[in-house]
């Protein structure tokens, strides 16, 4: 299974929760304790067991383009085409 991780731009996140629904691994959760500067509770990437596969479905669903997706690929090979 491919390994991956995401970075969420919490300043641009509006807390719509659509990425948490799109994520097949359930490794995105909504913050409950720290609102962003705009007053939204942003999505957070919580993946202590390394379940993220870098599938990028969260990024496809995100209306605010807050998510950057990284995937571990074998060196010397070209990256797979992005999910879309």
């Amino acid at each position, binding site marked *: 299974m491919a*390994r*991956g991780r995401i970075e969420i731009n919490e*300043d*641009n996140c*509006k*807390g*719509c*929760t*659509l990425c948490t*629904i*799109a994520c097949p691994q359930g490794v995105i959760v909504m913050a409950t304790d720290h609102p962003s500067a705009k007053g*939204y509770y942003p999505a957070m990437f919580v993946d202590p067991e390394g379940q993220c596969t*870098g599938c*990028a*479905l969260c*990024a*496809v*669903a*995100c*209306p*605010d*383009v807050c*998510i*950057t*997706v*990284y*995937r*571990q*690929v*074998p*060196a*010397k090979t070209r*990256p*797979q085409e*992005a*999910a*879309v």
Partner: protein
Amino acid sequence: MMVAETVLEEQVVYARPASLRDVPTHYCPGCTHGVAHRLVAEVLDELGIRERTIGVSPVGCAVFAYKYFNTDGCEAAHGRAPAMATGIKRVRPDMVVFTYQGDGDLAAIGTGEIIHAATRGELFTTIFINNAIYGMTGGQMAPTTLPGQYTSSSPAGRDVETAGFPIRMAEVIAGLPGAAYVARRSLHNVKEIMKAKKAIRTAFKVQLAGLGFSMVELLSACPTNWSMSPPEAMRWIEEAMVPYYPLGDFKVAEGVEALLKER
């Protein structure tokens, strides 16, 4: 025996497209305008046409679209984006021109402009956002509001006896001879978003090939004015809007079929 260890390196597989400026949008949480913007920007990137693209913004929620797309752009009077796009494209036929319009802009005040632009077969692309409501002005009934749908100006639900039935714009435009490619897609889940992107890519290819007018209607969510959470709004698109506004290609003119197979 030595086993070669696979060396892994981290690569970016998804990031903000270059055609979308890195600024926060003014859209409400869960509004799929942001998704539609990103899909258009990704297509412009992939086709390599960002440097020669001119967008025309509407009046409506997407009125600031020219601030978000990293292309040239201008702002049309309410509903007149197709007329402005016609002028731009005729003066600069080497440029790629698209309009980005909502249902209040395209299906209400600007119905005449879009119909005649499509009839003339003007060589630009229209991205039509249908969210079944007037979003910017506070959630009034739109031409695309569904029968029985509650809005701030139809508090008892849209009564088709007095307000008539919603317009299926994609079907209307598809009936016009100048339209080369007309499709309707939805943005309510990841699978449909991916299909929407393919349709947008085809629409721009139709323009690049000079085959005629192209339009993609996107069923979009307005959680704020529908008084729903974003996940509820996505379900409402699927359960209420898609049955009335069927998804698919409504016009595939001669020559476009080859583009559809290209992907």
